């Protein structure tokens, strides 16, 4: 288990090797070696993960480095190595006079879960990319960025101190920038990448401020020490709330919570495997992970929890409505991701720690599958507008089936993974939050089933779009990876049940405070099953069979529809405020710098000196008679002076 650090380091190590090899090898050799290296690195990580997992299940509090976690009975193992120190090293009196930074890893159930998800999805995506990105001229860079991306994400989930987490956090942001903007020749990916980086960076400011605020009260960046200090009540209620909210600001940026969700749909401009990675395993999961990781802080502040839940619900509902009317297949999936991330945040806000992580995992597998499916469609048809598609199952049956599994899973059809995790969230919300929350959550669940049905039926079922006559199904590398993901999307939900063996079921593995078995509220489960099935049946009627006419509804709800299709005009608002406020302000400041600080403040004295010189030299006329006059005036002046003095 001490070797868990190998998981990210393998991928990190692959990065410079790929880049350097890329300079010396050319063409296909370089591409193949790059792909092989990256895949080998992540495969190695995946294998190490299983050893770590096994080691963790076998470990107890007697294992070196392991003890019971803070605020939870779960086992937490911590291994560290000094990185550097700054300030006065042996200041015994005041621990705030120095910082002691470590490369440290923290292995606990949350980390294990995230490691498993990230390594597996990344492995699948990288293999898938072999087919999808085939022939791209910069494949070596693609794999280098990929390896860096996943390595950063793995570091993020392993970090045992906030600073290391922040470092990985920023690297994740950078890699998303590089990968979203991978096709930088076109302006849209370029802009989308910039947007993603800057929007998440705004959240990062909150994160960094929060981290430093915690440090300035605890004197350490270590998570465990921080949690212990908070649990011991060393920090005031206000500080805890504020730092929790600041951390949440970072999470909002990365997990695309309202109002920072705008970058995620635009990020669809990147290559589709990258979207799959971002949506399922890395970037957006980081926000949810952060809130879960810092749960001892959040759980101390009821206010913070409420805000987390509210933001989550707003995001979930808003994004679900947009997903229902979006026309771009990848954007439907993107808004669906936002919506589900909102559900996870909602769940965390409702103290549904297990449910949130469970849903993160279940959603991760399903969403990766969906994106790879969408990528497969796009790869074959080079079309993304769902209105132009239809009946594609005739030409790409494998993709159709696999995509459908993902959609059904995410839509909450029983026995598939999504059903179980969604059910847990509903239970948590029902238990902790007011009635309005559960009603809206159920509405979101309905909507999410509906838009998944729409995406699935419109694209793959119904009337066949003739222009796709000659389209082929996905190549093997792509379909095999999708198949593996589909297996997980089907069976992963079963971990919710109480299982025999050391694992015992997810409720006994990932938990806050203390473990618990499967909870099942019959009426809620029944209601969600009914809603999901009804949504899919309705979707089939409306989108595949076309037996339900939607035109009437469209006309009746013209205005709300327009608003939803306009994505609630949040992008426009941002654009306006950036163009009109930020950039104008910047120009204003630049003008101030030129006109006031420079031309008045700095050039001013110089100009005054010069003008003074110009003015004063006029009195030196060079005319004899002027001097004579000056002498006469001087004489008069002296006389007057003498007269004044003498009288």
């Amino acid at each position, binding site marked *: 288990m001490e070797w868990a650090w190998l998981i990210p380091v393998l991928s990190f190590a692959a990065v410079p090797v790929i880049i350097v090899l890329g300079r010396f090898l050319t063409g296909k050799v370089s591409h193949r070696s790059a792909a092989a290296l990256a895949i080998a690195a992540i495969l190695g990580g995946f294998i190490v993960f299983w050893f770590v997992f096994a080691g963790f299940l076998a470990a107890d509090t007697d294992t070196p480095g392991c003890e019971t976690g803070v605020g939870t009975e779960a086992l937490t193992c911590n291994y560290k190595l000094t*990185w*550097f*120190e*700054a*300030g*006065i*090293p042996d*200041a015994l009196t005041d621990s705030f*006079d*120095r*910082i002691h930074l470590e490369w440290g890893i923290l292995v606990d159930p949350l980390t294990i879960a995230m490691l498993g998800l990230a390594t597996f999805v990344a492995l699948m995506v990288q293999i898938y990319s072999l087919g999808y990105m085939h022939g791209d001229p910069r494949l070596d860079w693609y794999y280098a960025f990929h390896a860096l991306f996943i390595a950063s994400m793995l570091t993020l989930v392993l970090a045992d101190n906030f*600073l290391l987490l*922040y*470092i*990985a956090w*920023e*690297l994740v942001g*950078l890699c998303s*920038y590089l990968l979203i*903007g991978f096709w*930088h*020749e076109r*302006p849209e990916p*370029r*802009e989308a*990448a*910039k947007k993603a*980086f*800057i929007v998440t*960076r*705004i959240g*990062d*400011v909150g994160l*960094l*401020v929060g981290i*430093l*605020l915690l*440090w*300035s009260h605890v004197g350490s960046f270590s998570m465990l020490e921080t949690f212990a200090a908070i649990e011991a009540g060393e920090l005031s209620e206000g500080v805890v709330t504020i730092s929790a909210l600041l951390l949440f600001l970072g999470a909002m940026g990365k997990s695309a919570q309202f109002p920072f969700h705008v970058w995620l749909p635009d990020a669809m401009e990147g290559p589709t495997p990258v979207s799959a990675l971002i949506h399922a395993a890395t970037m957006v999961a980081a926000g949810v992970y952060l809130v879960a990781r810092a749960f001892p802080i959040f759980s101390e502040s009821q206010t913070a929890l409420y805000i987390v839940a509210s933001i989550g619900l707003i995001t979930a509902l808003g994004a679900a409505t947009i997903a229902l009317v979006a026309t771009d297949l990848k954007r439907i999936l993107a808004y669906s991701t936002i919506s589900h991330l909102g559900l996870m945040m909602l769940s965390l806000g409702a103290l549904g720690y297990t449910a949130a992580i469970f849903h993160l995992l279940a959603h991760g597998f399903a969403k990766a599958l969906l994106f790879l499916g969408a990528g497969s469609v796009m790869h074959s048809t080079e079309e993304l507008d769902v209105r132009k598609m239809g009946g594609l199952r005739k030409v790409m049956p494998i993709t159709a089936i696999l995509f459908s599994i993902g959609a059904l899973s995410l839509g909450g059809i029983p026995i598939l993974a999504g059903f179980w995790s969604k059910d847990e969230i509903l239970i948590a919300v029902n238990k902790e939050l007011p009635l309005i929350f559960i009603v809206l959550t159920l509405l979101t669940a309905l909507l999410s089933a509906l838009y998944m049905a729409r995406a699935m039926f419109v694209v793959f079922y119904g009337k066949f779009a003739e222009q796709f006559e000659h389209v082929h199904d996905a190549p093997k590398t792509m379909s095999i990876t999708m198949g593996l993901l589909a297996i997980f999307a089907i069976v992963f939900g079963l971990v919710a049940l109480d299982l025999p063996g050391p694992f015992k079921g997810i409720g006994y593995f990932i938990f806050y405070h203390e473990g618990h078995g499967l909870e099942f509220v019959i009426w809620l489960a029944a209601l969600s099953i009914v809603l999901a099935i009804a949504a899919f049946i309705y979707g089939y009627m409306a989108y595949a069979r076309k037996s339900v006419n939607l035109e009437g509804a469209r006309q009746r709800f013209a205005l709300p529809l327009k608003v939803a299709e306009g994505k609630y005009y949040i992008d426009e608002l941002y654009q306006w405020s950036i163009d*009109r*406020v*930020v*950039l*104008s*302000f*910047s*120009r*204003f*400041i*630049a*003008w101030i*710098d*030129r*006109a006031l*600080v*420079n031309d008045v*403040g*700095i*050039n001013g004295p*110089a100009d005054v000196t010069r003008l003074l010189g110009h003015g004063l030299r006029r009195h030196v006329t060079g005319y004899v008679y002027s001097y004579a006059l000056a002498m006469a005036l001087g004489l008069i002046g002296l006389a007057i002076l003498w007269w004044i003095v003498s009288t």
Partner: protein
Amino acid sequence: MSNLDQVALLLIILVPLAGAGLSMLLPRNRPEDAWYFAIFVSAITLVLSVLLFVRYDFEAGGYQFVRVYEWLDAPLNIDLYLAMDGIAAPLVLLNGIVLFGAVLISQTIKHRSRDFFVLLLALGSGVFGVFVVQDLFFLFFFYELAVLPMYLLIGVWGSSTYFDSDRQRLWGLPIRFDLGSYNRLKEYGAMKLMLVLVAGSVLIWVGILAMYVASGQVAEATFSLVDLGALSSAGEFSPAFQTWVFPLFMIGFGVLAGLWPFHTWSPDGHVAAPTGVSMLHAGVLMKLGAFGIIRVGMVLLPEGAQDPLFYAGDFGVSWMAILIIMGTVNVVYGAISAMSQRDLKYIIGYSSVSHMGYVIMGIATLHPVGLTGAVLQMFSHGIMTALMFAMVGAIYERTHIRDITVLNGLMKRMGFASFFFAIAGLASLGLPGLSGFVAEFMVFTGAFKTYLPLAVLAVVGAALTAIYILRLLARTFFGEADPRWEHLTDASPVEKTVGGAFVLILLFVGVWPAPFTRVINVGVESVLQLF
């Protein structure tokens, strides 16, 4: 080796100076000879600076490599007192590296190249002198030796900027700002830089003389920093005296550090200067100012720095509080100004102003971590900004364009230059794993413990950096390759060497800053004992 230790500090000052002198003997009409000779000289200084840094014993701490060469006896008492402490050590190394890089990059200087390298080496010698000299008279002497060649270097080898008018509306209102219609002649940049810096020098000189006279009233008058420091810690200088002398040093040195609102010489100077000079200027010279505030201002006048001048509520406003406010303004203001610039060099110039703000903030926190961060930021920013200027120089050399509204898609033709620039840019926006993050983060840490609201503002400023750096990268390097750039060649071997080496340094400091922090720590510790 111990013999070398004895004279290493003297050598590191004299070698470039002697190199400058000997360069004058070279034939005028063979520019390559001057270049080779300058490489030879700066390579020696590089080796010496590395040696000094490595051999500085951070466990013993304090001043090391001490040598005193007596010069003038009483009543003047001026000696060439050489010593290096933990704060100076990384800066000496920085100057060694950047000077070498600047000389290499200046391969393209063909016009009167011999004279160019004479001045460049003299400048380098002055910078070394300021860092290692412990006597106010010689400190001022070397300070001027570092500053004065700038005028000629910019005035003779610089480049002028001509921009079309670029009028902008404010919030859609018909108020128009005339932003772009500036023709900044190189003579203007040189003259402004010179005048502003000399104005700062005047303040410093007044302060130095005040110290000399004040020391004469309690003991034998002296210029020696060591003796003055001893008098200061013995409480011989009254708080009132300290309070009025400290701002002389703070503003005087602050001008060179780009302290707002005395910063405008710096973008104009950077823009006009030739590449190698920009590197040295932004990379090392601006650090002299910040270093001077620590070495002279804080060490000699600790009470003047921290005694409250007046009270705003319960908060006693000292000169240090004023300094940190100005530093914060530097950070945010520089970043915002950089956002709407069009000229590559102006963007980097304003980013230097912004980044020097972190240094100033870190100094003014008077917090061990913050001050360590400030010194590390000096090193990190020196390398990063020198790298940026080097790559901008490479681009300008080939395209003769620096306007980012015109440049695009350079990545295709100039892969290496773009890559190096991007790394420097990422370091500049505080990306973890590169040196900028470690330093900025330490400054934030210090500031959070002392001036929380300003620290939050500074973090926001760091986020603003991302905006203008990404804007620059996206406009300049990404995008479809323009047919105009078909003929462009990528970075020359020399440029690749410099870029690659600097990138490695940035990475090294970012990943493993311990060799630097442990040296800086001991210096910072001894300074902060005075407070």
